[in-house]
């Protein structure tokens, strides 16, 4: 043993001399690299990540790769979703289990020619020509809406007909959806999903219409301001009227279409209804189940249906309904962004199928829903749509593909 060490050290020195390396310019110990007996290119996978993700991982956060047999795999952290792609390199990457790379951890030779070279053995665990690359993507939440729509909540009297195998807990949803936990939660809130007995449900739209009708009736008869609706009193009045709208439903709807706040004057909880959300609710109510509506007629009915103090504005309809001013007479139809595919290409196909030319402000709400940030909205649009200038000078976007 001793002997071979000696020989090795001599070899190291000899090899350095053969390579015409001058000891006086070098540092030691010299690290002798060797592949493990079990080393291969199969035993490891390299996952490239940014420093922020590495910090989280080092702090103990789990990463989860998710995908069904028909899905492309995604990688989820607690709050983001990433596309996983295998990257090939023509370079060999050898994985060393330990290695000094900083010259400050090494020291020079003494200058004494008889000095033995210090050496350390280093083991290579394996090698690789590939690594996995990550790119943050818009969470794949298409399935979430499909799942939530399987068993909508239609009120307490219908619950005995509801199929419990078609409603899901948060844990169940996270296991099915290709997205991170906080993204799933974010979308549950966005879709106004309500947690009933531990399971996340959507309210049936017909049921919402019924309940909102009750709520607006009380608001009107009590002459309350839509910006300040006393929550407890509203629940009591609805209960006393004998209507079967449970308080949790009233509260959920108030927070879906507005925000709750505590008054500093009397310490009571009030709801401030949101004009835009309320007007979108009425628009959807009017347009649902109707193919097309005459635009002027729709605007008239829509504006009339709004509660006192609230004004419907066409700007509220972005990403919800589509107006067609080229038809005679001009018409409007329901066209919800959330019903479109989250696959960007499919989404653009659907958009240009619905309408040939779009104005910027009109198309953005439909694109924003599948983009990670404001910046990518413009670049996505540039990539998937052709820009042109209309007769009146407005910028219009149309399909890059030939129309079929």
């Amino acid at each position, binding site marked *: 043993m001793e002997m071979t060490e000696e020989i090795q050290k001599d070899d190291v020195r000899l*090899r350095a001399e053969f390579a015409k*390396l001058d000891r006086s310019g070098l540092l030691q110990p010299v690290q002798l690299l060797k592949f493990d007996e079990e080393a291969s290119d199969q035993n490891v996978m390299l996952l490239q990540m940014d420093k922020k993700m590495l910090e989280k991982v080092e702090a103990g956060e789990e990463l989860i790769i998710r995908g069904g047999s028909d899905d492309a795999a995604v990688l989820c952290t607690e709050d983001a979703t990433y596309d996983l792609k295998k990257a090939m390199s023509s370079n060999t990457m050898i994985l060393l289990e330990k290695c000094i790379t900083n010259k400050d951890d090494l020291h020079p030779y003494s200058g004494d020619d008889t000095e033995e070279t210090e050496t350390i053995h280093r083991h290579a665990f394996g090698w690789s020509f590939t690594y996995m690359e990550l790119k943050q993507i818009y969470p794949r939440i298409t399935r979430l809406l499909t799942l939530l729509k399987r068993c909508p909540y239609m009120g307490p009297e219908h619950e005995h007909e509801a199929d419990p195998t078609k409603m899901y807990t948060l844990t169940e949803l996270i296991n099915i959806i290709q997205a991170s936990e906080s993204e799933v939660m974010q979308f549950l809130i966005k879709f106004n999903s309500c947690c009933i007995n531990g399971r996340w449900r959507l309210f049936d739209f017909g049921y919402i219409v019924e309940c909102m009708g009750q709520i607006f009736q009380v608001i009107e008869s009590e002459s309350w301001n839509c910006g300040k609706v006393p929550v407890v009193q509203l629940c009591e009045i609805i209960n006393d009227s004998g209507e079967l709208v449970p308080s949790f439903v009233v509260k959920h709807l108030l927070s879906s279409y507005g925000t709750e706040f505590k008054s500093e004057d009397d310490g009571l909880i009030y709801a401030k209804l949101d004009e835009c959300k309320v007007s979108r609710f009425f628009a959807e109510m009017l347009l649902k189940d109707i193919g097309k509506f005459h635009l002027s007629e729709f605007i008239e009915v829509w504006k009339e249906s709004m509660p006192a103090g609230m004004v419907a504005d066409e700007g509220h309809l972005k990403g919800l309904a589509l107006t067609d001013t080229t038809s005679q007479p001009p018409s409007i139809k329901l066209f919800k962004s959330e019903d479109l595919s989250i696959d960007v290409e499919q989404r653009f196909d659907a958009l240009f199928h619905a309408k040939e030319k779009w104005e910027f402000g009109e198309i953005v709400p439909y694109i924003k829903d599948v983009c990670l940030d404001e910046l990518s909205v413009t670049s996505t649009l540039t990539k998937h749509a052709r820009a042109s200038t209309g007769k009146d000078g407005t910028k219009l976007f149309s399909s890059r593909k030939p129309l079929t």
Partner: protein
Amino acid sequence: MVQIVIKKRSDTEEWTIIEMQGELQSRYANGLAGNNIGDLHFNKNGVPLLIIGHHILYGKVVSLEKPFAVLVKGISNENNKSKNGNELNDEDSAENRYNIQAVIKTKLVFTTRPKPIIIHVSKKS
């Protein structure tokens, strides 16, 4: 839906990558496993020098802008039984678990052309 959980081991180490152009081959075509790679020297400027066979390579130390996690297909440390005592099904088994064995923040890159070492054997008698 398959789920693969990737989790850091409590004793995650920091490893280093040695990157070189092309592919390494062993002298006797017996594969790389178990074979020596070479001698890694550093000069006083911190430049890594790697002697492989009769070649010398000059490299540089690169701090990775995007670090790597080294994933190793893991055997879970937990019991091989699930909570209710049943055998684990495929989705929970060790097959679907990766451990982060190490992280890599630094690499030594040797992408310049290897210089041959010419040995003049002086005949001593």
